[in-house]
């Protein structure tokens, strides 16, 4: 029975408009709650290797395999032999860059250890020639980003009474992933600005642009 005339139909306009206002308001409130959860509550943030007292977004990223002059195995060093990250990357706690260990450091052990391995022989050859290997940067931030390892280590490792220096691995893995399971390092976190920002918000890090951009 198609009797078409809008006179018959009457829509509750006032109520509808009120509804719209509520929708707007509810969206806002919902956003508040969601916001609280995302930024300030740790549950729905999956932590990597636990760093006590911190939450950070555990975003995965599959980097490309970057070839290196010497096929250095983090697994053997950091993983199996549990050498502290900062034993080789010794500058991390003193400088903005973590630094590549100087050749002398490698030779410190490898004059005696595993000298028969081909890679080590490569290394030794270089040392004798007095030239350093030309490593390729894996975790390479844009040049307008000034990240400092020093401060982050202080915040998460040295000022963290639940950790001691031997747990450096955990802190490093926040941004570098589980390097101890890799041979040559491979990017396993996005390291985008969003990644940084979320972590800074979750751990009340500074939100001032000039901390990183100058």
């Amino acid at each position: 029975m198609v009797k078409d005339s809008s006179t018959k139909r009457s829509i509750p306009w006032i109520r509808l408009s009120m509804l719209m206002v509520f929708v707007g308001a509810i969206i806002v409130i919902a956003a508040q709650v969601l916001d609280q959860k995302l930024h300030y509550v740790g549950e729905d943030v999956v932590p990597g290797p636990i760093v006590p007292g911190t939450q950070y977004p555990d975003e995965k990223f599959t980097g490309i395999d970057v070839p290196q002059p010497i096929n250095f195995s983090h697994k053997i060093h950091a993983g199996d032999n549990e050498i502290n990250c900062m034993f080789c990357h010794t500058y991390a706690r003193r400088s903005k860059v973590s630094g590549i260990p100087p050749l002398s450091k490698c030779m410190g052990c490898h004059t005696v250890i595993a000298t028969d391995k081909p890679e080590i022989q490569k290394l030794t050859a270089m040392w004798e020639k007095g030239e350093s290997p030309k490593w390729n940067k894996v975790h390479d931030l844009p040049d307008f980003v000034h990240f400092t390892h020093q401060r982050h280590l202080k915040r998460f490792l040295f000022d963290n009474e639940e950790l001691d220096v031997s747990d450096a691995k955990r802190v490093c893995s926040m941004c570098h992933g589980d390097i101890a399971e890799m041979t040559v390092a491979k990017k396993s976190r996005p390291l985008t600005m969003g990644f940084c920002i979320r972590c800074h918000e979750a751990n009340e890090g500074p939100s001032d642009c000039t901390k990183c951009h100058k």
Partner: protein
Amino acid sequence: MSSLFGNILKGWTDYTKGIEEGGHHKYEHMWGMVIDLDKCTGCNACSVACYAENNIATVGEEKYKARQSMQWLRVERYFDEPDIDPGAIDDENAMQERGASFLPMMCQQCNAATCEPVCPVAATYHTPDGLNAQIYNRCIGSRYCANNCPYRLRVFNFYSYTDEDGAWPEPMKQQLNPDITVREKGVMEKCTFCIQRIRAAKDKAKMENRKVKDDEVKTACQQTCPTQAIMFGDLLNSESKVTQAWERQQVKLGKYKQDRENPKLRGYRVFEELNTDPSVLYLERVREE
């Protein structure tokens, strides 16, 4: 969604606080400067030091002539003395009796900066250090900020200076300061009070769990100034020399008109009356009449 609506319900009043608190946040520092125009000899060392410290491009004669120069710190020179001898400059036959007047002008780091609100992408904003920051990688080059700067102290990368025929042919590239981004074409830039030095000092202080000491931060211009006409420090630190100098001159931040019981004091801020509230205090030049 979260970052769409966020937490406006929390501390709404915080967010709507006005100028009297200087924005919503607590200032960690308020970096300020004092420049004694009587000591300044206009020798330009500061300007060159600034070029060296901050990777500023040299543009060459033609572009300089077209007023596309890039200096962050310019030492202006005037030949008239309105306060002592107004008529002198108009007398064709007279001599330049009392020399010239020199004025080093770097970004005044205004606390009510006119450049900040107009930036469409918030590339320039006020830091908790009381600095007027410029985030190069956010800048889209609308140049509104420079138009709105009464001091004309913002410079724009009208060209790209990074290629081989630019400002740094090899091996000059090697001199570039890694702590500072090299600006690409289409980006606004300006004096930052050597923010990289401030950052370094603050990080150092944090590593040692202490506050930044007075004189721990020296800007490039201040450090090189042969007559030490430039003083730099934290205006929130009551011990700092700068704070004392400001108090001695009875000049206060947040005012566009200073009420001083002694009008003969030498301290003044350029274009203070525009209520830009600059952080650079100049001490009047002194000359025998």
